[in-house]
């Protein structure tokens, strides 16, 4: 029973780390209906910028502030050079643009900051905490708290501020939003900047665990099944999807893995996601698309 509980809790906590990555996708998808292929590169760029500034001697807070400023500038640049010229094009065109963007961002990150591996110490010890005989990671607890806090802040931002309401209007009906004077370009800039900051938080936590290096961008592979399960348009769905994926993959690895050769964590979430696609194509919290035919 202890093993089951420990696996379940460990999986749920690990799942919140996946949610952090997935939230970045949700933000951009909500505002523009585009799956942002460059989210992983943005996450890498943000974390690499932060750790490079730290290594240059900047205090933690200053490095964080400068990185956020760079991400905001980056968002404005992306909106001006990539999104604005492609406004009113099909979602597939925008998707392909983000695909190209990911190469540009990765190349810029490696060209400007090098290819070395960086250690990142956030001051959160990765030590075990025992509740009875059940082992829980302190680092995972902090990461889970961060994810939940971030989700709450974003929920407040989107539900209670003018920007948030504008964003929801754009997401619901872009043309109607434009007709009542909402500045679509400004909304895109804000959303990409917020997605970058979410990427920074996710990149810092994942980077503290595995080091900040080029392959950090691969953590987004975990986000796709999370999004399919939770829905592409819901931050709460990203949290729920992350929890489901984290718990399911850990339980499956522990109880099913030994019978089928082990190492099943990479594909099991996708297997689960396909099952969800059959039952609930829009995900648990996703909006069902209704089209007039």
């Amino acid at each position, binding site marked *: 029973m202890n093993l089951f509980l420990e696996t379940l809790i460990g999986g749920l906590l690990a799942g919140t780390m996946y949610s952090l990555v997935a939230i970045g996708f949700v933000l951009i998808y909500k505002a523009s209906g585009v799956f942002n292929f460059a989210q992983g590169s943005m996450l890498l760029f943000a974390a690499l910028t932060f750790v490079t500034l730290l290594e240059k001697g900047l205090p933690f807070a200053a490095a964080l502030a400068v990185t956020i400023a760079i991400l905001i500038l980056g968002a404005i640049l992306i909106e001006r050079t990539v999104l604005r010229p492609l406004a009113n094009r099909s979602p597939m065109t925008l998707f392909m643009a983000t695909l190209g963007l990911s190469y540009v961002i990765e190349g810029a990150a490696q060209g400007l900051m090098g290819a*070395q591996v960086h250690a990142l110490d956030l001051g959160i010890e990765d030590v075990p905490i025992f509740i009875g005989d059940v082992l829980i990671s302190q680092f995972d607890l902090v990461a889970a708290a961060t994810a939940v806090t971030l989700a709450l802040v974003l929920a407040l931002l989107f539900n209670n501020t003018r920007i948030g309401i504008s964003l929801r209007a754009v997401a619901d009906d872009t043309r109607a939003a434009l007709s009542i004077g909402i500045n679509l370009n400004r909304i895109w800039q804000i959303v990409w900047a917020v997605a970058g900051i979410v990427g920074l938080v996710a990149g810092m936590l994942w980077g503290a665990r595995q080091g900040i290096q080029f392959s950090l961008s691969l953590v987004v592979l975990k986000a796709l099944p999370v999004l399919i399960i939770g829905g592409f348009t819901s931050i709460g769905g990203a949290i729920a999807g992350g929890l489901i994926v984290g718990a399911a*993959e850990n339980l499956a690895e522990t109880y099913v893995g030994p019978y089928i050769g082990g190492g099943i964590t990479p594909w099991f979430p996708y297997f689960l996601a396909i099952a969800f696609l059959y039952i609930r194509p829009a995900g648990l919290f996703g909006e069902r698309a209704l089209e007039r035919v």
Partner: protein
Amino acid sequence: MNPASAALRALRRVALPVGLVTCLATSAFAVDTHPGPDSDKQFFPIASYRVGPYASAGVQIWAAMIDYLRYVNEVEGGINGVKIVWQECETEWTADKGIECYERQKHGLNGAPVAIYLPNGAPAAYALTDRAAQDKIPLITLAYGRTEATDGRVFPYIFPVILTFYSEASALVNYIAEREGGLDKLKGKKIATVYHDSAYGRETLEPLELLAKTYGFENIQIPVADPGNEQSSQWRQVREAKPDWVFLRTWGVSTPVAIKTAVRFGFPADRIIGDVWASSEEDVLPAGEAAKGYLALTPYPAGASFDIHQRLKKAIIDTGKSDLRDTSTFGSVYYNSGLTDALIFVEAVRIAQKKFGNRPITGTEGQWALEHLKLDNARLKENGFYGLVQELQLTPADHEGGGAARVQQWDGTKWTPVSDWVQADRALLRPLIDAKSAAYAKEKGITPRDLSQDLSKQQ
């Protein structure tokens, strides 16, 4: 029909079959080197990966190769007077780009021929196995690739020199035996292998099974799927199994994550022994404090105090001629691996020149040289690699040659060697290798070379 068009038709009838026959015939022979102004030089192609997820390792490896080649050119005047030219081709560590680079570089550079090709990556190495044999260009796959290529009868053009994964597994067991007080003390011990669930990771399943049966230890195998950035369930299994030692055969991010997760689950880092691809600074630095005490096997230990480093420092590093952008990585594990690769190339060319003359060496001559490569301690002292590279002797039947590794320990800031060369029990593992190479030969319809003539010449 006018005579001109009749002649043209006749020419076509003759030219087409002749052309086809010529193509088929030449494909069975070594590739030609395209003529050019550098025909008096030796070409060293570098299939590099300076971008992509493995670039952090790559930049140090290529820098070391280039630094050593530059040193040989500038300080030693080339290899017996033959200057080396090199050219990089970006593979991003992928098979498709690896093949493209090979095809682009196999004809040499401005007339300088290719003696040896380094695919620098398992995907490209596997993909080039047949092409290299057809083109008669030997491939060096140091510490990666097919273990069965040790059998030169079936794989005349593949050289997994110095240390294969089978030897690595055996060296690990022998090192643990040293620590436990002898091979007889292994009986009843538990050795868990946490391995990358890929061709590379699965390579040690078979030898470890044999070693466990031979020495009586319990062999526990736990796979970690790529990329391995979440390993709680694997280390929970380790904790449940309570092994005496863990052999960590991971790669990339899965190594620091494994070390951190192991320590979180209460498994001490100084009972974990990493393999060749989990033994660099990049593997332990991200793990921070958790990696203190971590052990790792390596055929090219870290350190900049070897004689070759003093020579390079004086001639290349201090004069600003190094290819390293960050000279703090001078003497890192990856840098030293690049030096070792470059050394094998230079020494093989030197040996070939003894037989074929002091001139640029071709692929077939390079293959002969590798099969007769001998690096004893006296030679290693001469070229400055003593302590960094083990004694090595290759034969047509044995393309590995060494089969030893040193164990180094991470103290939080640097690696320190904690063992001398630990030799693998290669005789015990050889039947496994022969069985695999025989299966490969059967599958591909290859008739193994008869080496009796070569062996009698050696005796």
